[in-house]
């Protein structure tokens, strides 16, 4: 089966700073991969390239077989992306975010019902018509996940979706990841919370200096032994 997410020799440089050196990554439909690593390892930059927000400096990045550099709009249509920080328009309400996403993604009937159900699930229904500038960090994260999954994307890219989120919100995120996988989506999760990554994903890919330094079944990083192994890979 062809990979839904595929990078070959992906390179991103900001002037002299190389954020992603040469990254090879492959995610099959119905699977979830955790990108883990220290700050500055290149996780968020990789997700930004895959989301079509940042053009790569070199190499290849494909979403559902579509080259993100050549056809960014086509690739974006397949992707649901939760950015790492912020990710929300400060003076728009959650409902306005959802309405805008539905319009730009060309969603037809039924999106409003799904949006309402998702807001309810993430305990945001009561805040659906308030501007996001007044939201706590955790509320913002939860809304970003809702926005990423609204259109049931073929590829779900979640950057730090659990950061500052309460246990119920984290569980709701784990549930939507599981549902996306069950529906055949490829999921990439970047996080520093190893145990949640292990719970959500089949495979963990450890990045360091913009390169893959290890890849292992997520279960192998479970528990204290897994934590020790992970720390040794970070050093």
């Amino acid at each position, binding site marked *: 089966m062809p990979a839904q997410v595929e990078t070959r020799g992906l390179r991103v440089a900001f002037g002299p700073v190389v954020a992603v050196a040469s990254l090879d990554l492959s995610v099959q439909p119905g699977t979830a991969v955790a990108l883990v690593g220290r700050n500055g390892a290149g996780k968020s930059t990789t997700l930004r390239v895959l989301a079509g*927000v940042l053009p790569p400096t070199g190499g290849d990045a494909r979403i559902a077989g579509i080259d993100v550099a050549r056809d960014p709009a086509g690739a974006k249509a397949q992707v649901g992306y939760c*950015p790492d920080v*912020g990710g929300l328009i400060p003076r*728009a309400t959650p409902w*306005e975010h959802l*309405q*805008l996403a539905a319009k*730009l993604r060309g969603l037809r009937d039924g999106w409003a019902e799904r949006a309402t159900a998702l807001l309810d699930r993430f305990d945001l229904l009561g805040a659906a018509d308030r501007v996001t500038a*007044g939201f706590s960090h955790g509320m913002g994260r939860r809304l970003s996940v809702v*926005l990423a999954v609204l259109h049931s994307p073929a590829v779900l890219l979640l950057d730090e979706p659990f950061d500052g989120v309460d246990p119920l919100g984290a569980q709701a995120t784990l549930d939507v990841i599981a549902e996306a996988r069950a529906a055949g989506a490829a999921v990439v999760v970047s996080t520093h919370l190893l145990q949640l990554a292990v719970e959500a994903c089949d495979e963990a890919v450890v990045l360091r200096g913009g390169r893959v330094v290890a890849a292992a079944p997520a279960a192998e990083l479970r528990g204290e032994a897994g934590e020790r192994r992970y720390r040794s890979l970070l050093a």
Partner: protein
Amino acid sequence: MTQLLELVRLRWRMVRSERVRFGLALLAALIPGLICGAVIAGQLAPRGRSFDVTVLAPTAFLGFAVLSLVAPLAAGGGNELFPPDQLTPFPIRPSTEFAASLLVAPLNLAWMSQALLLFGVTSFVTGDRPGLGLALVTTLVYVALVTVAGQGVAWLIIGARQSATGRRLVWTLAGAVAAVVVLVVRTHAGYAVLDNSPTTPVVSTALDGAAERGARWLVGTAQLGGLLVIAYLCGQRACAWALRRPGDGQRFRESRTHRRRLPAPGPVRALARVDRAGVWRSSPLRRGLLVLTLLPGFVAAGAGLEWESLVVVPALVTAGAGLLFGVNVFCLDGGGATWLASLPHQPRHAIMAKTLVLAETIAGSGLIAAVAGSLRAEHPPTLADLTALLGCVVSCSAVVLATCVHVSLTHPRHALLRGGRDTPAPPAAMAVYSVRLATVTTLIGLLFGGVAHAGSASVAAVLTLGLTTLSVVSLARSIRSWDDPCERARVVAAVSSG
């Protein structure tokens, strides 16, 4: 003082470009030079209307006092060296905040030009009398006094507005002031009021200095100096009080619900709707729009200007409207810029939506100021007057729009525009942008004023066509540059970081 010096040093170090540093140093060096220039101009000006200028001098001093109150009020308590979110971890004292906002007060084109006018007027009314230096000292103390007092009053109002009762009180007060102004204008009592301006003794003190009546000058100037010290101390306390207030104003605005609307018909209109909400739901932008749009228009209406002078009013208003958020239009998206960039839409839709909202704001403000100003214009307009006024609004709007979109693309910045004092760019950059926009629009305004005076509607139409075409070409070039994904990524990264 130590904190203030450290903040200034840090701000200076944060200016990375050598060219910008040179420009700022030049600007700082220019201020004393400009004051000297104004004084020399006052000395060299023909003395034909010396009596008229002396009679009008208290009005000019009063105008500066009003400006010194309105400017910090419009800026939510005065401009700031750093946005508050950047200083959260540091124990900055309110007295430092107050001193910092005073320090950047001259970085305001209206303040600077009016202050220069006062020095020029003082020099002119002093004439060739020997005590010019003493007269200028009085003016300097007066400028400092009203600037400090204006800042203090502004902080008081900002503090009061943090509670529902305070907001009601401020609106009542504003309504009362507006009613008094309307009453004065309607009863033609304006001249009588200005003749009794509280600034008349200030001008008299300056003239005492000019005439070397040392004792009287000393008493008058010392009184102003004493008031300055009192105003400074009171201002510090007002600032500390306002900053201590819990700030339920912002919480109230951010926690209230907004009515859901039906989806917009197309992607550009959907994006523009969100941008428009971003403007009207931001307290500094909403307040700035109200002050900018209504105040100059009604001042012009109150003054009953002639049509050729009226033309300059909307020109300056369009420049001010551009400065509200236009010089960094993508900051409206904030952190959401990254999410927006991940949505499947034509990149041009995003920039077109921003351009549309910006055009509405700039042209709308200019038009309202023009209409308000023309309500009491001195005589019925000729076709040339109307064409010049409309042409000026259109041309200035087009030029400001093109400049703002260009600057937004070349110098994108993260700016929250959430708190009352937030601006789309740091104070020095805002000063540069204001000089740039105000110079161009004033020149255009004067050009159209000349055309109105000459009575040529066709020249006004041709001028409008030419300036608008040039602006459209520049705007098209900016919009084309947005097609480059690297450019878009740079802008998105800049506005969403922070």
